[in-house]
C-alpha cells in the first residue's frame, strides 16, 4: 500500500522523535506511536468526515515528542529503582558468602540496638501499662529544703485533691505492701498488693474485665468496705481464671475481703517492673495496721498526677507550688515542704536516676556495636567495589552519570540494610527473653518484659535506614571521587592497591579496632568491678547464715505480743542444734528497698545554719552484731535487758561517732529523736548499708524491743550448712504460732548476690557486647587483610620471584595487619581513657583508668589481630609466583 505523503511525514516525525526518548524506552515508544497513528489514520480514512481532521493528527504527534521528552526526564525514576533493586538482588544472590556475612553483621548491630531500645521503650513509655493516655501521668514527690524524693501523707493528699488546680485532672496515692493471703483457710500465701486511693482505677482509666472497680464511698469511709480487685495474671495463676471468684471472700492479713473485680489484662499496677496481685482501698489501711490515714507527718504514699490535656509540667508545678505554700502556712507538719513533679521514667518512685543511667550505658554500647558493624560492611562493600571497578568504568564511559551510579550503590546498600534490619528484629525477638536472666533475685514479682512492638519496629526501620546511609555512602562517595580515566586505567590486578581506597579501608579497620577496644576496656573494668564488689567488705563477716522474713502484723499481733513473740522465738532458735547465734532486724543491709532515716539532735553538736541532721537507722534485736560478725569498737551490744521499759539506748557506727562526737567519747552521749532521748551505749564498725558502692555514712542502731515493728528479718548464724536448719525453724514457728509463716528464706551468700546486682548486670551486658564487637572487628580485619593480600598477589609473586622466602611474605602481610591494629589500639586507648571516666560512679575498687584492664584488653586484641592476619598471610605465602605473574 502506497502511503499518503502526510502519513509518511507523520511517521518520519516519530522516527526522528525517538531520539528524544531515553534509550531504554526508544523502541517501545516508537512502536506505540506508529501503531496509534496508523490506526487513527485508517479510522479517519474510513470515515469521510474524518479526512479533514488529518491535520489534527499533527497536533497529536507533537504530543508524542512531549511524551518522549517526558520519558527522558522521568524514566529514571520510573525504572531505575526497580532495575537497581533487581540488579542488587542478583549481586546479593551471586555472592552468597558476602551477603550472609554482611547481613549477619548488620543483623547483630541492628539487633543489639533494637533490643536495647525495646528496654528503653519499656521504661519510657510502658512503665505504667494498661491505662489511658499514660503520657499525661506525672509522678509527684514531697520535698523539704534538702530532699526531693519524699512520699506524701494521706491528709496532704486529701488537701491537694480538694484544692485541685485547673492544670491537674486528678491525683492518686498508693503504696505497695506485701500481704498474707488465705483462701478457704488454706496455707497462708504471700501476695503483693497496692493500697490505693478510691479514685485509683477511675483516674488511671483502667477497667475491670469482670466485676467492678472501687466505688467512691469505698475510698472515703475508713474500714467500712473490705473489697479487693485482683490482677488478671493473679486471677489466672491463683484462681485458674475462674469467673466465680468475683464475689468470693479471701483473707488478707487476717481480714476478710470480698473480691469485687478482675482488672483488665495488661494492667499490672503502678510499681515499676512489678506485677501486682491485687488492690485494696487505702481506707482499709487502719484495719490492716496502725492507722496512718490521719497523721499529716506520716509520709508513706506514692503519688501520681494526671495533667489536663495540653497542660505542661511547668504550669502544673507552679499551680501546685501555690497550694504547697498554703498548706505549709496552715499545718505545722507541712511547714517548709513542697512538691515536685517528675516524668514517670525518671521519678524516684520508679527506680530513679540509677536505672536511667544503666539504660544510657546500654544504648551507648549498642550504638558503638552498630558503628562497628557499619564499618565492617562498608569495608566489605569497598572490597567488592574494588573488584567491580572495571564494571563501573565501563558504565561511566557508556554514559552513566555518577549520580546514577551512587543511586545504584545506595540501592544495593539499602537492600543489604533491609535484610540486616529484618535479621536484627529477629535477633531482638529471640533474645528478648534473655532480659529475665537479669532480673535480680529479690523476693518480688519482678517482670522486665521488653516488647518488640510497633514503636520498636519504627525504631528498627530508622536504624536500618541510618545504617544504609552510614555504610553505603562511604563506598559510593569513594567511587565517585575517582575519575573515569583513573578507573579505566586501574585494573583489579594492579601491582599495588589504589592508595586512596586502601587508605579508607584501613581507616575503617582502625576505627573498628578502636571502638572494640573501648568496649572491651569497659567490659574489663566492669568485670573487675564485679570481682571487687563480690569481695568488698560489707561490714559484716558472717557468710554461713540464713535470712528469713517474718511478719507478725498479718497474724494479728499487737506491739506487746509481738515483743514477746520475738523474745521467745529468738530464745528457741538460739537453743536449736547447729545455730551459733541468732538475731532479728527490721531490714537486712544491702537488700533492695531504701533505708529509713529520721531527723535528730545530738547533744554537744551544733549543726551549721543550713544543716539538717538526719540519721539512717535500723532496728535490731539483741546479739545482732555478734550474729552478723560486725566488730564492736567500744561499749556494748544490745541485750535482752534493753526492753521497752528501760531507758532508750542506741549503738552508733564509727562515722557517726567521728562526725558528731568529734573529740568526745560517744559512749554515754545523747541523741534526741523527736521526744525520745537515746543514750549511746556502743560503737560498731562502719559497714555498707544500702549499696556496695556507698561511701561511709553515719548510721545508728535502735533496739527492736524499744522500736517495735511487726515485720522483720530473722538472722541465723549457723555452724554448718545454713539450709539444713530450715526444717527446725519451721518446727519452732509451728510450735510458737502456726499463723506466722516464714517466707523469703535465703542464705547470706545469696543475699550478697543482690548487692552486686547492678555491677553484674552491666558487666554481663558489656562483656556480651564487647565479645560481639571483638568478633566483628576480627572479621573486618581478616576481610581487609585478605583482600589487600589478594590484591597484592602480583607483587607477592614478583617478590618471591626475586627471592623472598615464605617467611618474608608472612611477615610482610602480618606487619601490615599489625600496623592497622596498633593504630586502632592507640586511638582506642585514648578514647577509652576519655570515656571510661563517665561511669566512674558505677565502678568498685578499680579506677576508671585501671592499668590491668587496659593492658589485658590490648593484649587480647593484639593476639586476636595476629590470628586474623595469619590466615591470609599464610595463604599469600603459598602463592605460586609463576601463576601470579602470568595473570598480570
Amino acid at each position: 500500500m502506497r502511503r499518503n505523503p502526510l502519513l509518511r511525514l507523520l511517521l518520519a516525525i516519530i522516527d526522528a522523535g525517538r531520539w528524544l526518548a531515553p534509550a531504554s524506552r526508544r523502541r517501545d515508544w516508537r512502536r506505540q506511536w506508529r501503531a496509534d497513528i496508523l490506526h487513527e489514520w485508517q479510522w479517519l480514512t474510513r470515515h469521510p468526515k474524518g479526512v479533514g481532521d488529518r491535520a489534527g493528527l499533527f497536533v497529536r504527534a507533537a504530543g508524542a515528542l512531549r511524551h518522549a521528552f517526558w520519558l527522558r526526564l522521568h524514566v529514571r525514576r520510573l525504572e531505575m529503582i526497580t532495575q537497581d533493586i533487581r540488579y542488587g538482588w542478583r549481586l546479593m544472590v551471586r555472592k552468597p558468602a558476602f551477603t550472609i556475612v554482611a547481613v549477619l553483621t548488620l543483623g547483630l548491630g541492628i539487633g543489639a540496638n533494637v533490643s536495647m531500645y525495646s528496654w528503653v521503650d519499656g521504661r519510657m513509655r510502658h512503665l505504667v501499662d494498661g491505662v489511658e493516655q499514660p503520657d499525661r501521668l506525672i509522678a509527684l514527690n514531697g520535698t523539704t529544703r534538702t530532699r526531693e524524693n519524699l512520699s506524701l501523707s494521706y491528709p496532704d493528699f486529701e488537701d491537694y485533691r480538694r484544692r485541685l488546680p485547673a492544670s491537674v485532672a486528678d491525683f492518686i496515692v498508693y503504696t505497695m505492701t506485701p500481704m498474707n493471703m488465705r483462701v478457704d483457710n488454706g496455707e497462708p500465701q504471700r501476695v503483693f498488693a497496692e493500697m490505693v486511693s478510691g479514685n485509683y482505677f477511675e483516674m488511671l482509666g483502667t477497667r475491670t474485665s469482670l466485676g467492678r472497680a472501687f466505688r467512691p464511698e469505698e475510698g472515703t469511709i475508713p474500714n467500712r468496705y473490705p473489697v479487693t480487685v485482683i490482677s488478671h495474671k493473679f486471677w489466672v495463676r491463683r484462681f485458674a481464671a475462674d469467673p466465680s471468684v468475683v464475689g468470693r471472700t479471701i483473707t488478707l492479713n487476717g481480714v476478710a475481703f470480698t473480691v469485687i473485680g478482675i482488672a483488665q489484662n495488661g494492667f499490672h499496677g503502678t510499681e515499676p517492673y512489678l506485677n501486682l496481685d491485687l488492690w485494696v482501698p487505702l481506707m482499709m489501711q487502719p484495719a490492716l495496721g496502725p492507722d496512718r490515714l490521719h497523721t499529716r507527718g506520716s509520709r508513706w504514699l506514692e503519688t501520681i498526677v494526671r495533667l489536663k490535656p495540653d497542660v505542661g509540667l511547668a504550669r502544673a508545678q507552679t499551680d501546685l507550688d501555690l497550694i504547697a505554700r498554703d498548706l505549709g502556712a496552715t499545718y505545722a507538719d507541712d511547714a517548709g515542704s513542697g512538691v515536685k513533679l517528675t516524668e514517670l521514667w525518671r521519678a524516684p518512685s520508679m527506680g530513679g536516676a540509677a536505672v536511667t543511667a544503666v539504660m544510657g550505658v546500654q544504648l551507648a554500647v549498642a550504638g558503638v556495636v552498630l558503628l562497628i558493624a557499619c564499618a565492617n560492611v562498608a569495608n566489605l562493600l569497598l572490597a567488592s567495589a574494588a573488584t567491580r571497578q572495571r564494571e563501573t568504568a565501563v558504565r561511566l564511559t557508556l554514559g552513566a552519570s555518577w549520580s546514577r551510579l551512587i543511586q545504584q550503590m545506595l540501592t544495593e546498600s539499602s537492600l543489604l540494610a533491609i535484610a540486616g534490619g529484618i535479621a536484627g528484629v529477629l535477633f531482638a525477638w529471640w533474645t528478648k527473653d534473655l532480659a529475665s536472666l537479669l532480673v535480680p533475685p529479690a523476693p518480688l514479682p519482678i517482670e522486665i518484659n521488653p516488647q518488640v512492638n510497633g514503636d520498636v519496629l519504627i525504631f528498627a526501620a530508622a536504624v536500618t535506614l541510618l545504617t544504609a546511609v552510614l555504610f553505603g555512602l562511604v563506598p559510593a562517595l569513594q567511587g565517585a571521587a575517582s575519575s573515569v580515566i583513573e578507573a579505566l586505567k586501574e585494573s583489579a590486578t594492579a601491582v599495588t592497591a589504589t592508595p586512596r581506597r586502601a587508605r579508607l579501608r584501613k581507616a575503617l579497620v582502625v576505627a573498628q579496632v578502636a571502638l572494640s577496644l573501648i568496649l572491651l576496656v569497659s567490659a574489663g573494668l566492669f568485670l573487675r568491678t564485679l570481682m571487687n564488689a563480690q569481695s568488698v567488705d560489707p561490714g559484716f563477716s558472717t557468710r554461713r547464715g540464713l535470712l528469713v522474713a517474718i511478719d507478725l502484723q498479718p497474724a494479728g499481733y499487737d506491739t506487746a505480743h509481738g515483743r514477746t513473740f520475738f523474745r521467745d522465738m529468738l530464745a528457741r532458735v538460739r537453743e536449736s542444734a547447729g545455730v551459733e547465734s541468732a538475731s532479728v532486724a527490721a531490714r537486712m543491709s544491702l537488700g533492695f528497698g531504701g533505708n529509713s532515716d529520721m531527723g535528730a539532735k545530738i547533744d554537744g553538736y551544733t549543726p551549721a545554719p543550713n544543716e539538717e541532721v538526719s540519721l539512717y537507722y535500723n532496728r535490731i534485736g539483741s546479739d545482732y552484731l555478734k550474729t552478723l560478725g560486725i566488730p564492736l569498737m567500744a561499749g556494748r551490744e544490745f541485750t535482752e535487758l534493753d526492753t521497752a521499759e528501760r531507758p532508750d539506748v542506741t549503738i552508733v557506727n564509727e562515722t557517726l561517732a567521728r562526725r558528731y562526737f568529734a573529740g568526745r567519747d560517744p559512749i554515754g552521749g545523747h541523741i534526741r529523736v523527736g521526744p525520745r532521748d537515746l543514750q549511746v551505749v556502743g560503737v560498731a564498725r562502719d559497714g555498707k548499708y544500702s549499696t556496695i558502692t556507698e561511701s561511709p555514712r553515719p548510721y545508728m542502731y535502735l533496739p527492736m524491743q524499744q522500736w517495735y515493728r511487726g515485720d522483720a528479718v530473722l538472722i541465723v548464724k549457723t555452724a554448718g550448712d545454713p539450709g539444713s536448719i530450715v526444717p527446725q525453724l519451721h518446727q519452732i514457728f509451728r510450735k510458737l504460732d502456726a499463723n506466722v509463716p516464714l517466707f523469703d528464706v535465703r542464705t547470706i551468700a545469696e543475699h550478697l548476690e543482690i548487692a552486686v546486682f547492678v555491677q553484674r548486670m552491666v558487666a554481663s551486658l558489656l562483656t556480651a557486647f564487647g565479645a560481639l564487637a571483638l568478633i566483628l572487628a576480627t572479621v573486618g580485619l581478616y576481610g581487609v587483610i585478605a583482600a589487600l593480600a589478594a590484591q597484592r598477589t602480583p607483587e607477592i609473586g614478583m617478590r618471591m620471584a626475586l627471592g623472598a622466602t615464605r617467611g618474608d611474605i608472612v611477615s610482610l602481610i602480618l606487619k601490615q595487619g599489625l600496623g592497622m591494629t596498633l593504630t586502632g589500639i592507640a586511638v582506642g586507648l585514648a578514647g577509652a581513657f576519655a570515656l571510661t571516666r563517665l561511669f566512674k560512679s558505677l565502678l568498685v575498687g578499680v579506677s576508671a583508668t585501671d592499668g590491668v584492664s587496659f593492658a589485658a584488653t590490648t593484649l587480647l586484641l593484639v593476639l586476636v589481630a595476629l590470628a586474623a592476619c595469619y590466615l591470609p598471610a599464610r595463604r599469600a605465602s603459598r602463592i605460586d609466583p609463576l601463576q601470579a605473574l602470568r595473570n598480570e
Partner: protein
Amino acid sequence: MPKPTPLAFGSVAILHAVADGNRFGFDIMDATGLTSGTVYPALDKLESMGYLTSRWEDARAARRDKRPPRRYFDLTPAGAAALSSALQRYKNLKPVSLAAWRLGKSEV
C-alpha cells in the same frame, strides 16, 4: 511503589476513561479531552504506580487490519480501588448553589 497521595484530576479522568473501555492512547484522549502530551506520560506514570498495566495487542488482529499492534491499557485492582476512592471524594463534595456566582452578585 503506589503513592497514597490523592490522584490529580487528570489521572482520575484517565483511569475513568480506561475503566469505561477506552484502552488506547487516542481513545483516552478523546474520552477525556486531554492532549496527547498529557495523556501518554500520564499513562506511563499510572503504569509505574501500579494502577494500570499495558500489553501489546494481539499481532494477528493487527495484521488483519494491516497495521502494527497497538499498546493498550488495563486497569489493575489497585487502579480500580484508587479510582473508586477518588470518585468518592468528588461525590462527597457538598452541592453548592452557583446561581449567585453566575449572576456576578458575589462582587458586592
